């Protein structure tokens, strides 16, 4: 049985990775799972300088999922490269660094610095965080802005770039095509869906930021639909995510056209979720006599 997948020239031992921002840089969940088992670890968004993030409360539970408005708190690229990359290098997994910024220049500074670190396999560019006021999502909601930032980053990047798309758009395929046309090597989707929760007893917003990004099992059907539509629209590989809790969910994304999948918020619910998904995919493959995992990718069509 072969579970390898090829993501824009990078070979992953299996298609299971972690959703940015839900797994830190692997240290915390390294107590629960063997990081060597993962296809890749995708790190929390990192900017050119430290960001303090939003006030609390930053998280709220909603039916079948959660809202978050962390606001991309991060220690900045220099600390990240001195501390987090050396930690991850000890493991036999691919390192994918998620990059955020408030201006194109911010992104380029981070991309340039990461270019000097060969241990980083790929860059995931977050142009879709709904929780920071300036920049970020503005790049991810207009096709021409997305085209522009993607092509500029592509000129600087030493590693393949994954553009992480926002679901908070009218037509995801328009965004996907713009990123592909600008030279993106892969796409990941979906980021969180903007939501709101009101505490009726206190008559206050549940989050200090008022709105937050929704994730978890309740968003999965939306994510599967968007991955399917995007897979029809572009040739570059897709990393699918949104509510994956177990292998069955992950296989759904693969069949819809994703080459790899990320487990996000469900790590909070089940810290062993990533390795259980890997095991479950293998079980599925043996049950249905699937030789190569790649045979599952996009296998469901009209």
């Amino acid at each position, binding site marked *: 049985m072969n579970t390898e997948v090829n993501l824009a020239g990078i070979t992953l031992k299996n298609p299971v990775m972690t959703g940015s921002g839900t797994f830190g840089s692997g240290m915390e969940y390294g107590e629960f799972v063997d990081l060597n088992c993962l296809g890749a670890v995708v790190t929390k968004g990192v900017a050119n300088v430290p960001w303090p*993030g939003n006030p609390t409360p930053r998280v709220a539970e909603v039916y079948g999922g959660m809202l978050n408005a962390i606001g991309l708190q991060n220690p900045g690229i220099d600390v990240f490269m001195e501390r987090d990359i050396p930690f991850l290098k000890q493991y036999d997994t691919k390192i994918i660094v998620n990059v955020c910024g408030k201006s194109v220049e911010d992104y380029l500074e981070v991309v340039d610095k990461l270019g000097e670190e060969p241990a980083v396999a790929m860059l995931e560019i977050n142009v879709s965080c709904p929780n920071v006021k300036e920049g970020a999502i503005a790049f991810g909601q207009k096709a021409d802005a997305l085209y522009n930032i993607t092509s500029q980053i592509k000129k600087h990047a030493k590693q393949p770039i994954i553009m992480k798309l926002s679901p908070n758009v009218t037509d995801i395929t328009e965004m996907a095509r713009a990123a592909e046309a600008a030279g993106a090597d892969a796409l990941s989707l979906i980021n969180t869906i903007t939501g709101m929760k009101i505490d009726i007893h206190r008559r206050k917003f549940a989050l200090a930021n008022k709105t937050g990004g929704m994730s978890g099992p309740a968003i999965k059907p939306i994510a599967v639909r968007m991955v399917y539509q995007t897979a029809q629209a572009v040739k570059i590989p897709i990393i699918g995510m949104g509510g994956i809790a177990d292998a069955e969910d992950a296989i759904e994304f693969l069949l819809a056209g994703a080459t790899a999948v990320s487990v996000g918020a469900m790590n909070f619910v089940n810290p062993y979720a990533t390795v259980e998904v890997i095991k479950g995919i293998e079980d599925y493959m043996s049950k249905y006599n699937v030789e190569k995992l790649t045979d599952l990718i996009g296998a469901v069509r009209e």
Partner: protein
Amino acid sequence: MKEKSMACVLSQAELAPGIFDLWLQTGMAANAKPGQFIGVYPKNASTLLPRPISICEVNEDKTALRIVYRVAGAGTAEFSGLKEGDRVAILGTLGNGFPLEAGKGKKCFLMGGGIGVPPILQLSKELAAEKSIFLGYRDGALFLKEDFEKYGNVFVATEDGSNGTKGNVMDAIAASGLEADVIYACGPMPMLRAIKRYAQEKGIQAYISLEEHMACGVGACLGCVVKTKEVDHHSHVHNARICTDGPVFEAKEVEI
């Protein structure tokens, strides 16, 4: 080592209206420290996140944990229906716990307000010090008071004056005329702010246990931060994670 595993319910009782006392058999008890907490998972798949609940007590042979909690919403309402022999998923042990060295051999105030009373119990068992225990309640529906009496002098404050000093734990301190070298406390934010001010005025150390909404409970999501005076070693900004760097902080280190 942290883990998520199934615990077995040994017993459950209602201590006061809406306040439940649950004993769980779990391997986590072996290394549990006072001031640490566990995440308790509801079974209902619409309520996914673990509920942070403090460790109230560890049994003699360190095979079981006691938690005492107030029914506050869907998750805790579900837990209140657990019966002997039921199984429940828990995550733990989480957080740093109270520093026992700081108060060792000194005069200490151990202070709990409302649903902040439970974590003070295991602390009062383990802390080797001259202990004055101040417990604040809303009304006469006291809980855990007798459990504390074995471990130190107990002073009660009730908001309605039905038991002990009328007012809050700060009023009870004033009424007692006592002084301390070190304070340990858990309770609502106004109480913790008052303790922070009091400790500053007296020039003494105060260790306070904080609360925030959490998702992961293990330091990965950055959901549960508190503003810190200095740049935090992990975040490199003025934010520490309550679930891992806390929940116990020295009062002067945090902006509350």
